[in-house]
C-alpha cells in the first residue's frame, strides 16, 4: 500500500507491508504513475511501515531512481528499519541515492 504526501514538488510515498516480488509489481505501477504525473523534484520513499524487504525491493528502488532521474528529479529513502538496512547495505544502493541512507 502507498500513501502520498505532496509538498510542492517534493513527494513522499509512504510504503507499507512487505516488499517482495509479489508486492513490488503493484508498487512499481503506482509509483511510476506518480512520477509520470507529478515529475517530482524529490521522491521520498518512507519505509517506516515496511516490515520486510528482500532483493526485489532493491530492484524496485533502483528502477524508480532511474525513472525520477529521467524526469530531472532525485530519490531519497526515509525511516529505513534495521533489517532492511542490512539488505540495502549489501546492494551498495546507498552510494547511488541522494543523501545516502540513514538507518
Amino acid at each position: 500500500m502507498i500513501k502520498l504526501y505532496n509538498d510542492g514538488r517534493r513527494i513522499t510515498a509512504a510504503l507499507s507491508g512487505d516488499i517482495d516480488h509479489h508486492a513490488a509489481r503493484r508498487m512499481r505501477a503506482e509509483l511510476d504513475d506518480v512520477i509520470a504525473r507529478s515529475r517530482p523534484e524529490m521522491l521520498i520513499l518512507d519505509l517506516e511501515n515496511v516490515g520486510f524487504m528482500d532483493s526485489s525491493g532493491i530492484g524496485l528502488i533502483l528502477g524508480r531512481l532511474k525513472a525520477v532521474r529521467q524526469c530531472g528529479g532525485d530519490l531519497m529513502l526515509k525511516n529505513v528499519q534495521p533489517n532492511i538496512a542490512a539488505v540495502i547495505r549489501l546492494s551498495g544502493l546507498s552510494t547511488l541515492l541522494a543523501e545516502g541512507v540513514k538507518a
Partner: protein
Amino acid sequence: MKREILNETVIRFPSLSANEGFARSAAASFASQSDPTVQEISEIKTAVSEAVTNAIVHGYRDAVGTVELILRRYSEGTLYIAVKDKGRGIDDIVQAMTPLFTTAADEERSGLGFSVMESFMDKLRVRSAAGRGTTVIMEKKLNRRVK
C-alpha cells in the same frame, strides 16, 4: 559426531507469487522453536524469500509448477532449509551466483538473491541441472547465544 534431526516439515505449494510471503512466514515460524534472535529471524525470512522467489520467477518461468520447502532442526542447533523446483534449471551456477548477475534485468531483478542468501546464512549449496530443476540448501547455526 552424527547429528540428529530433531524436527522436520515439508511444505509443497504451487509457484504463485502469493506464496512467497507464506513460505517465509512458515520458515520463521518453524525456526522460532530454536529461540532465534529478531535479527536471525529476519535473515532467515529474507534468505527463504530469495530462494522461493527464484523458483517461482526463474525456475518456472513460463508455467506453474510445484515448489518444495523442507525445514529441519538439527541436534547441534542448526536450521536446515531446502528449496526445490523442477523447473528449467541453471546452466552455469558460478555465473548465476555472481553478485549482480541476472537473466531478468527487464523485470527489475537486481541479481542479488544469491548474495543475500550467502551473507544471511552460514552455508549455501546449489545443485541444478538444465531442464531438470534446482535445489538450494541453506544452513544457519542458531545456538550461539549464551543461555
